[in-house]
């Protein structure tokens, strides 16, 4: 048996290896230079959370000719107790929390705050607290308009006697206040 003395095969293998390395480094260099690693995944998660939040609030704010928005009833019926680490949910809003938890997927947590204007300032009251939101949390909101309790626009809405949302009356305005129901969502 005679072995052929030639280094061509080794040289070809080395060339192939060098070419592969060159291509890998070129692709790595380009992807790093863009300073983005799969940006779509993060954006997709944000959009998904936004959709969950919007859909949940819109569903609760639906109204028809026979009944007012459920969300509006919850806000008017808020007893003024703020949520926090000690009281995760304001007692009067436990039903709102239950409804939101049913709508949201199990791996999504949320906080709910009520924001309203008074005397040129915005006042913020936490009413549902499920933890400190991380940096990548998403905020969505829904506006709720409340009218003076005994005005001809109040319909069947009763404002809780301990509700701390103030009446911003002036002149002959029937408006009680506008409340921004803000929901902060994040994945567990």
């Amino acid at each position, binding site marked *: 048996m005679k072995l052929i003395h030639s280094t061509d095969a080794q040289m070809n293998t080395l060339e192939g290896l060098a070419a592969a390395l060159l291509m890998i480094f*070129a692709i790595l260099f380009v992807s790093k*230079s863009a300073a*983005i690693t799969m940006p779509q995944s993060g954006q997709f998660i944000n959009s998904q959370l936004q959709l969950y939040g919007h859909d949940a609030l819109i569903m609760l704010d639906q109204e028809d000719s026979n009944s007012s928005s459920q969300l509006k009833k919850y806000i008017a019926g808020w007893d003024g107790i703020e949520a926090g680490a000690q009281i995760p949910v304001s007692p009067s809003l436990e039903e709102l929390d239950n409804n939101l938890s049913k709508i949201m997927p199990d791996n999504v947590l949320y906080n709910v705050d009520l924001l*309203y204007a008074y005397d040129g300032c915005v006042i913020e009251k936490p009413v549902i607290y499920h933890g400190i939101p991380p940096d990548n949390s998403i905020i969505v909101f829904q*506006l709720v308009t409340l009218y003076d309790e005994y005005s001809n626009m109040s319909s069947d809405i009763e404002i809780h006697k301990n509700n701390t949302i103030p009446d911003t009356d002036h002149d002959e305005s*029937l408006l009680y*206040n506008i409340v*921004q129901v803000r929901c902060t969502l994040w994945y567990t």
Partner: protein
Amino acid sequence: MVHISLSDDKNAQWLLLSGFMVSMVVIGLAILLNQAMISSHQSAQAEQDFPKHDILEMRSETFKEAIRLNLNNNTNSTEFDDTMSQYLENLDTLYLMHGEHVNITVVNTTNGTANALLVEFIDGTTTFSETGLV
């Protein structure tokens, strides 16, 4: 007389040419990949940055409440104007917190029986305005 003979071996030329071709392909692929990543990022970011929900919520809540006020037979025009004025004041305060400005103007229509509202939204980048009957 000196006779110069050129070699017939073309291996070096083929190596150079194939190296050139491979580098061109790699550069082309790299540019394509880069552009694809940047464009998808930019389009997704633009969609996120556009205040779609802020505008939709302002618009729908304003027209919904204005129509409700207008349809209520017990509400007179002074109450309508004062309520919308107070509504605008509170709404603008809430939106200013996001760096957005809203404006609502009650516009009387020509026949004098119905009102129209001009709603405007400005956040420095996006401007939106719409006039609708209520």
